[in-house]
């Protein structure tokens, strides 16, 4: 046989093999199309950005909406939270965006930069949502969009960092709830007994680790601003020392397997083992309730740092976006107004254990009860906490806080990189990203 056959076989193999790779880079020019207002009736598609966990409550809201608007049919599409951004990016590049979609401020700037979302400030002013959305959340949405005062999503809820702890383990050890960072470190050490499979804390080392590390870092350093002039404060000496202390927890008072922990693994570790504390947000309440029942656990706001001051980083604000490419914006906007109105917003947030954006919903009895039972619920709005605003408006923020630095943070945990090296590199990326963003303003 001549060499022609092997050459042809090799070429065919490589062609076939390259298909999976080529798919990653296929796309058009990102045009999202102009869309149209439509007739205010007909069919619309809604993408839930946290499908699965929130599916039941959305189905209820959609059923109520369709009863109130029998001429509008909502097609519900649940998207897993970890995939939602890539799904949006793929749809922006290749077509197939929904009419309405769940959008949080953590990736809002990316979508605005791709010209995918319709400005909604005017619609809010002209409609039933005027004056009923919490001012702090509308400000967060404006800032995260990065286009001046314009809003590109309707805020529906806010989250807050929470220190969840096992009340039974604390009582057995004779420990008080850890309201300061010193008490937190002390409790983590006392609750750890590796020989008996007991650990004081579980740390997030995998996907989503950076925001949590920044939260612990600013909380301990007491620095309240993310920027000092043109430069970020992430690598300030106080922050370096705080991150060293936080990363030092790994392996000493946490399971070593935590280096790979994403949200799911971390919550599963806490809910299935003998682990004293977990830092997450209000959203994992239902998981803990299922695992421990009422009274078996409790939530606290971020511990206080130097001088009794409580500092934490901003959590993303969730919202609903109206897509430019929609051919039925009239009907889509009716759905957004319905979902952000008092009744639906209250039902959704009660189910998700989060803070409603609708100020009328925020006065409901369940909100007051939640605030009484869990300090983290109230600490966002009671003036006890200073918030370090993370720069969600930077188009590079998601890369810097995920793709670029999560593997590097794992190196810090494993002792292969110092906290200072890690934070210096991150600061350089942030300063460059901010300078580039400012050039484009």
């Amino acid at each position, binding site marked *: 046989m001549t060499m022609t056959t092997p050459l042809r076989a090799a070429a065919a193999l490589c*062609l076939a093999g*390259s298909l999976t*790779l*080529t798919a*990653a880079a296929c796309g058009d020019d990102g045009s999202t199309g102009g869309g149209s207002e439509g007739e205010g009736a007909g069919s619309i598609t809604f993408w839930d950005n946290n499908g699965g966990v929130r599916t039941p409550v959305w189905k209820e809201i959609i059923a109520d909406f369709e009863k109130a608007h029998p001429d509008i049919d909502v097609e519900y599409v649940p998207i897993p939270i970890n995939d939602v951004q890539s799904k949006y990016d793929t749809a922006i590049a290749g077509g197939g965006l929904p009419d309405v979609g769940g959008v949080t401020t953590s990736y809002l700037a990316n979508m605005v930069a791709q010209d995918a979302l319709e400005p909604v400030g005017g619609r809010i002013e002209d409609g039933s949502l005027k004056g009923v959305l919490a001012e702090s959340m509308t400000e967060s949405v404006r800032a995260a969009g990065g286009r001046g005062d314009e809003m590109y999503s309707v805020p529906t809820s806010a989250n807050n960092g929470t220190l969840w702890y096992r009340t039974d383990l604390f009582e057995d050890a004779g420990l008080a709830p850890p309201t300061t960072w010193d008490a937190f470190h002390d409790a983590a050490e006392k609750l750890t007994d590796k020989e008996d*499979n007991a650990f004081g804390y579980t740390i997030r080392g995998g996907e989503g680790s950076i925001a949590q590390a920044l939260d612990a870092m600013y909380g301990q350093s007491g620095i309240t601003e993310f920027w000092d002039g043109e430069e970020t404060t992430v690598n300030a000496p106080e922050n370096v020392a705080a991150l060293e202390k936080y990363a030092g927890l790994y392996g000493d008072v946490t*399971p070593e397997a935590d280096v790979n922990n994403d949200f799911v693994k971390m919550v599963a570790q806490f809910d299935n083992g003998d682990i004293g504390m977990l830092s997450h947000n209000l959203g994992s309440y239902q998981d803990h309730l299922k695992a421990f029942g009422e009274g078996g656990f409790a939530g606290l706001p971020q511990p206080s740092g130097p001088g009794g001051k409580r500092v934490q980083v901003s959590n993303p604000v969730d919202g609903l976006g109206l897509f430019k490419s929609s051919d039925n914006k009239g009907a889509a906007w009716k759905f957004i107004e319905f979902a952000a109105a008092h009744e639906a917003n209250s039902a959704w947030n009660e189910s998700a254990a989060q803070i409603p954006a609708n100020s009328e919903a925020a006065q409901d009895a369940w909100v007051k009860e939640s605030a009484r039972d869990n300090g983290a619920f109230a600490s966002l709005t009671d003036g006890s906490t200073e918030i370090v605003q993370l720069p969600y408006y930077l188009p590079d923020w998601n890369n810097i806080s995920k793709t670029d630095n999560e593997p590097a943070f794992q190196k810090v945990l494993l002792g292969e990189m110092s906290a200072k090296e890690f934070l210096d590199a991150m600061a350089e990326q942030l300063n460059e990203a901010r300078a580039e963003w400012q050039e484009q303003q």
Partner: protein
Amino acid sequence: MAQAVARPPGTARRRAEDRRGGSRGRGSRRLPYLLIAPAGLLMLGFIAYPMLSVFYYSLRHYNVTKPWRDGFAGLDNFTTLLTDDPLFWDSLAFSAKWVVVEVGLQLAFGLALALIVNQTFVGRAFARALVFSPWAVSGVLTTTIWMLLYNPATGVSRYLADAGIGEYGTSVLSDTGTVFWAAVLAELWRGVPFFAILILADLQSVPRDLYEAAAVDGAGRLRQFVHITLPHLRDAIILSTLLRAVWEFNNVDLLYTLTGGGPAGRTTTLPLYVANTGIHGHDFGYASALTTVAFVILLFCSILYLRLSKFGGDNR
């Protein structure tokens, strides 16, 4: 002055037939092209277009979150990845190690299992089904099975710690010294049946009289294996190792779901790096350049392998 030339009888009739025959001939010559046209169009649409698209974007700056940077990049992306991107070289080196170890071990175990289930014994059908069953399991399900086995709270390490072996709260996936072999084992479980199936199919076509003749000549089982079985399997082994090497090089599903490329980038293959750069990092221009380089490497290695192995040659 033109002279009249006497024509043989029937010439005009034959010319008319030729004309009719010519038109039929042209039609029959077009027929094969028409028949393969649908396949050709599909290949153009699903292979040529995506590939050309990747080559095109590899020469551009194209980051969907930074439209102001978009434009012609020339060879900038290639220069960066070759001279200023340690992650590219790290992921390429890991891909090479992954392919060599995976394909080598899968071949060895697949060959051994094929030889075993090719024997006649009670329960052979059940044994064959058992050997081939992992191939029927989807990649994500395979990962789930192995993640449960490696889980520090409910997996093997927990029971070993209960028995006093090792420590609580550990996982082979979180230890930089063991994560590679833990991932290799999971992929091995899935990949071995592929070799076993292909090799078993070829084993069954070896003429029995060759073994009988060798036995009469005094050849033992090892000599029969080396001089009869292996030469017969040669082309099947070359083709299956090449196919598997390409698939393992492009492996994304298992490593993505099992380790996410970590910890600390220890299990990031080149395709995983492409996925992170393109899908999560939104830098499709640079991801396209990485893809183009991966394609060239695969093409070069495949041709070299086929040349060196003299695939299809009659060397028996």
